[in-house]
């Protein structure tokens, strides 16, 4: 899921200072789980904006904010409330915000969240970054733990000299990804794989912006 955090309310107010009325769009998926764009957050932002003398013409929680076409269809029932708003505030990730940009070509759209990373929810509203979307998975070669993400240097061939007692040189709060990989490979009898030298990563696989069409016979990522 995509991990987001609420922007400072004062910063949001500065962004929307020139506008009076707003329609709020959340997201039932990631932002709801992050506590940044679900039903309670929509209600809370409405109250906070009204306390600042702003008007909220309506709120809406799409099924999946980043699904542009679906969100557009869902928003049809709120056509009037949307039309009455000077601007749209989106309480989802950057992708959901840009769905709104596409759906509302004539209205300013503002994000209420910062989009942080692709993460796993380890406990309720606790998130770990595990995947960097690098375009070419090496989890088969690294014991199922991604060093591109879990090592601050993204090293591919073992720990750096900065590791200490199994901790990372960047912070003692971080486990050394390569010590974790080593331990897991040892446990699963895969140390032979650890000994193989991995080649430099093919970063062209993660070049931006990407598009993917899986509708045709040939699936192709375009860069």
């Amino acid at each position, binding site marked *: 899921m995509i991990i987001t955090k609420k922007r400072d309310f004062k910063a949001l107010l500065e962004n929307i200072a020139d506008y009076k009325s707003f329609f709020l769009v959340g997201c039932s998926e990631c932002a709801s789980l992050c506590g940044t764009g679900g039903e309670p957050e929509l209600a809370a932002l409405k109250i906070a904006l009204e306390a600042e003398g702003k008007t909220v013409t309506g709120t809406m929680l799409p099924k999946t904010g980043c699904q542009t076409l679906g969100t557009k269809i869902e928003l049809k029932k709120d056509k009037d409330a949307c039309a009455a708003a000077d601007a749209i505030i989106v309480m989802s990730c950057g992708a959901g915000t840009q769905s709104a940009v596409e759906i509302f070509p004539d209205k300013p759209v503002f994000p209420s969240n910062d989009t942080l990373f692709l993460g796993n929810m380890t406990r309720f509203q606790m998130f770990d970054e595990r995947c960097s979307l690098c375009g070419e998975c090496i989890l088969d070669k690294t014991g199922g733990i991604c060093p591109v993400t879990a090592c*601050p*240097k*993204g*090293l*591919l*061939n*073992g*720990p*750096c*000299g*900065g*590791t*200490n*007692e*199994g901790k990372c*040189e*960047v*912070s003692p709060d971080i486990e050394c990804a*390569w*010590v974790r*990989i*080593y331990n897991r490979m040892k446990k699963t009898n895969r*140390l032979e794989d*650890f*000994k193989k*030298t991995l*080649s*430099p*990563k093919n*970063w062209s696989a993660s070049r931006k912006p990407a598009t993917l069409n899986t509708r045709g016979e040939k699936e192709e990522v375009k860069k």
Partner: protein
Amino acid sequence: MSLRDALNSGKFVVTAEVGPAKGTDIKKILHESELLKGKVDALNVTDNQSAVMRISSVSFCKLLLEMGHEPILQMTCRDRNRIGLQSDLLGASILGIKNVLCMTGDHPNAGDHKEAKPVYDIESVQLLQIVAGLNAGKDMMGNELKGATDFYQGAVVTPESNPIEPQLMKFEKKIAAGANFFQTQAIYDIDKFKDFMSYARQFPVKILAGLVLLKSAGMANFMNKFVPGITVPQNLIDELKAAGKEKALDAGIDIMARHIRQLKDEKICDGVHIMAIGAEDKVPEIMERAGLL
């Protein structure tokens, strides 16, 4: 004599290091380099050490060459992508620089530009492979070069890292990638180092034991607490303490000289790499007390 020839001749080799200045005033570092001339076999030039921005290691290596030094170019993967690294290596080669020490590099988090985007496009093992390729006349994509490099390739290893196994497996990867010599992270426990050496001796590489000058008991305690992979044994800390504040540096010089003597006399390794960290002017004295001058 080149570092390669010195190590191959079986001589007990001494290297030291200098850190380029932060700014264009290089009087101090030139003076320190001058003091070491004719005394050490080669001089490492650090590459934005601790991720603190300084003069480029390539430029300072060139100045050392002009002074008659044998420089070792430290090259980290933190600040340049694979294009920049190869380009700088070719540049170093045409300037006459023959030794390159390939390292990953400290994370920007440690330095004075914490907001920098770290590169790490490739890492130390792969950089060694790339240098081997340049020596063979090819860039890393296999493109033919007009003229090959002739680098003597070095790498680093932390013999006291914990856990040690993944570190040693990486050490072997570095050898397979083309490392000819290693300079180690600082070691203080010679017996422990002997264990590492009895393992390392099965490989055809030269090992220079890294030695960091202890200037006080406080510094030793600080390193134990904050510097990864370094353990200063209690008896050495007691020795520094017993020497008192004024004589602590002198005691530190004694400790290092003693260690060098033992490493040399017992033929434990192929040489030493002295890291004086701000007391480069003391290196000749250390060498004198160690019986090397």
